[in-house]
């Protein structure tokens, strides 16, 4: 099937304004008749629930944490982009769009990216009005910093806490609506099924994580704002609770999963210290504004103290290879360069998994106090984890899975191929193409939540009669029965391996075969091994306790079971995409200098997969990508 993104036509500059005018409106008096389910309350879901509630809709919002304030958006450190051009350094909406399309290696939709760039400016205004304390200069104006993949300063920030401050802004707006009664908040609930009636999304089934009760909720539209899936690698920068479960349940009910192979490996994370490790911690990309990345030139130097390696024996490899962007080259390029250095035996620290991020020159130029003011909390966090003082010796960093550009397929209205199912933020595939630029995730989450879905969902709702289906419908009953049966299955296997053991095993397969450098052999290997792990899981997992109480093993079993199915899809997508683009690097497809080689003739499309049943091959659907404003070009950061 050829998919249609239903993008507006005509001049790109007018596309969103024209589309908003063309959308039908829901009469203010009728809005309260509509129920909307919002799963996930991070930047996208929290902002959307607050905005929709304020418009007058009845919103039921769900999150697995004990409070919406804890969503993993909170961990984003560096900043949020906007095309304000306050520094007058040449920025514009068009340039932000261009940088985003190019950064994504020409695998995103132009109209969506234009819209994102256009509303980026509204986001900053909105957050300021909420009392988000952005960094300011002494005159009181908003301050900017630079981020990877851009030659302008367009990143707004609040210390190294930007995600936290923006999320707390959305959380405060959401709290206001909860108080007003327009949003009903359900904490500690995990979505375990999407209920589809006659091809239309009508509700969800969730597990109450405190009582174990399986509950159903019906609505006129269901929105998933459930984040990304890179915990499929086990070790990632995501929170422990982040999973593909909500998205995968929707995929199993017919929603197409787009570009799952586009995963981002972030270059600046704290290296793994041991096998027991449960997660990896990111050091914000903003550090690359003032830190210089290097590895020793000689293998015999890798175990020396960094201070004992002379400047001449250091390879500042990003500055050498990409002189115009230097240490601010995009993430995929920076990560691969670091991996190349380590693969060549030039890595530092435990297991040779690390390169240096060095602040000595900046401290000399600006003073230690200035660096502390800019990144103090990051240096503190680094010291807590590694017991090393990064003011005195360079940080060690290594790439780690960080973000999923892929996600459920959506059209321009953020609606999936299932009518009534909308997907927001990282959970959808829409704007980042094959690679996301720094400070763009927060921008997308808030754009979708504050400024896109409040308009586009109305265009759908006017076409449906409110309250047409209730939880009395047999599909809801069936969903509850199915969810209970699956949970009982986990509890009854009583095998010999813990859920985490399976997760770690899957993670190793994914990292080694479907990580930063993928080949036909490695991917085929993954496609062979993952079903074996899956089979063993269903015969040998051990989950203690019962389903009628708080049971973290049971929660985790469900998430890992879904990763064990989804990981295979990710590998299949990576195998089919016979090109290198952005975060997807196939060793067979590279230019002589090792740069990614895209194949625009054969692969300039969104690959959206339709689930066909367990152990059956999924079916690929394509949405061709057209580039009318930004011309296809080889991405170069040299």
């Amino acid at each position, binding site marked *: 099937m050829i998919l249609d993104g239903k993008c507006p036509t005509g001049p790109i500059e007018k596309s969103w304004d024209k589309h908003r005018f063309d959308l039908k409106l829901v009469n203010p008096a009728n809005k309260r008749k509509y129920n909307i389910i919002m799963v996930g309350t991070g930047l996208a879901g929290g902002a959307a629930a607050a905005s929709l509630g304020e418009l007058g809709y009845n919103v039921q919002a769900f999150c697995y944490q004990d409070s919406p304030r804890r969503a993993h958006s909170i961990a984003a450190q560096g900043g949020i982009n906007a095309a304000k051009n306050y520094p007058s350094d040449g920025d514009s909406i068009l340039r932000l769009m261009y940088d985003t399309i190019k950064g994504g290696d020409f695998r995103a939709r132009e109209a969506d990216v234009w819209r994102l760039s256009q509303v980026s400016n509204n986001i900053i205004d909105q957050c300021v009005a*909420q009392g988000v304390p952005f960094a300011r200069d002494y005159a*009181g104006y908003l301050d900017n910093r630079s981020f990877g993949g851009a030659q302008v300063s367009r990143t707004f920030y609040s210390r190294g806490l930007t995600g936290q401050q923006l999320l707390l802004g959305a959380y405060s707006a959401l709290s206001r609506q909860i108080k007003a009664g327009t949003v009903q908040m359900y904490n500690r609930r995990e979505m375990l099924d999407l209920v589809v009636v006659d091809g239309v999304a009508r509700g969800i089934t969730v597990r109450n994580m405190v009582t174990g009760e399986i509950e159903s909720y019906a609505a006129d539209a269901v929105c998933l704002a459930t984040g990304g899936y890179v915990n499929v690698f086990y070790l990632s920068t995501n929170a422990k609770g982040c999973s593909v479960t909500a998205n995968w349940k929707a995929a199993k009910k017919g929603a197409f999963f787009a570009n799952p192979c586009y995963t981002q490996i972030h270059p600046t994370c704290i290296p793994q210290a041991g096998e027991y490790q449960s997660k990896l911690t990111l050091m914000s990309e903003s550090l690359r504004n003032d830190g210089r990345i290097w590895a020793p030139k000689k293998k015999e130097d890798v175990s020396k103290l960094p201070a004992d390696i002379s400047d001449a024996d250091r390879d500042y490899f990003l500055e050498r290879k990409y002189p115009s962007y230097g240490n601010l080259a995009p993430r995929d390029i920076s990560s691969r360069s670091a991996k190349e250095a380590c693969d060549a035996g030039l890595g530092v620290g435990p297991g040779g998994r690390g390169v240096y991020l060095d602040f000595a020159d900046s401290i000399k130029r600006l003073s230690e106090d200035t660096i502390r003011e800019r990144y103090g909390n990051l240096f503190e966090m680094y010291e*807590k*984890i590694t017991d090393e003082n990064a003011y005195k010796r360079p940080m060690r960093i290594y790439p780690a899975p960080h973000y999923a550009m892929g996600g459920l397929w959506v059209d321009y209205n953020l609606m999936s191929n299932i009518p009534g199912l909308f997907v927001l933020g990282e959970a959808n595939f829409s704007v980042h193409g094959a690679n996301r630029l720094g400070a763009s995730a927060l921008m997308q989450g808030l754009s979708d939540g504050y400024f896109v879905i409040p308009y586009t969902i109305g265009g759908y709702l006017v076409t449906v009669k409110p309250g047409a289906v209730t939880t009395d419908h047999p599909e809801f009953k069936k969903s509850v029965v199915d969810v209970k049966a699956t949970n009982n299955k986990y509890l009854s296997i009583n095998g010999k391996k813990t859920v985490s053991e399976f997760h770690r095993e899957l993670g190793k397969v994914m990292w080694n075969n479907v990580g930063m450098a993928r080949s036909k052999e490695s991917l085929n290997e993954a496609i062979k091994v993952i079903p074996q792990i899956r089979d063993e899981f269903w015969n040998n997992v051990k989950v203690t306790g019962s389903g009628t109480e708080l049971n973290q093993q049971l929660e985790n079993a469900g998430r890992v079971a879904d990763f064990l199915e989804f990981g295979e899809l990710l590998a299949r997508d990576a195998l089919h995409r016979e090109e290198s683009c952005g975060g997807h690097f196939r060793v067979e497809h590279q230019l002589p200098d090792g740069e990614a080689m895209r194949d625009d003739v054969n692969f300039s499309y969104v690959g959206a997969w339709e689930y066909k049943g367990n152990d059956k091959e999924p079916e690929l659907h394509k949405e061709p990508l057209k580039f009318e404003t930004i011309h296809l070009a080889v991405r170069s950061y040299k």
Partner: protein
Amino acid sequence: MSDHKTMTLTLIVWRQKNANDPGKFETYSAKNITEHHSFLEMLDCVNEDLILAGKEPIVFDHDCREGICGMCSQVVNGAPHGGQDRTTVCQLHMRKFKDGDTIYIEPWRARAFPIIKDLIVDRTALDTIIQAGGYTSCHTGGVPDGNAILIPKPIAEEATDAAECIGCGACVAGCPNGAAMLFTGAKVSQLALLPQGKAEAVARVKNMTKAMMECGFGNCTNHYECQAACPKGINVKFIARMNREFLKAQFA
């Protein structure tokens, strides 16, 4: 791995099946722990052993494991988050302990935070306080340009100091009165400092303090345990500011 030194520790952990169970301490042994383990990774290891032995693992709240989401909440050896300066328990590392140590692990204990299971407590009271007024009542859209209202850097910085609160509740757990004054004071102060929050400052401080009392939190008697327990180092001066705002509000 550069060093292979491992530690064996004795854990004395609060186990409580549910809100109605009286609960009791149980003793466990944590083996093969290195200095690089985080505290929660140490507990993960203990739990893996318990599961394989067919026993119920210890449940505890956690999520980001990088000290920002505020989900983790354990009293370690009597101190919320373990007592390391400005550190959440997920960021506490085992290098702070010695081989052979005995470690007591308990949940937050406060009237407003009923225990759900083992080390997990119900902190919805903190959400209730925010819902009472921890926001500016701006609409989505229809707001002025971000630079239309200038905010001097020192004011923005002080507001950020207050805004760093992660809402974990350690301040309540550390306070002998189970007060949430630091939590509430931080939000009241952040919004009272900023021009965007001033319009509603009077109603906000009244409503938030009222919600705080109704939720069963105690009052401040200047022990400063909250500041000592706070993993973000939120300063008690924000309690003083809230008190000033509260007094002002009585005459507004």
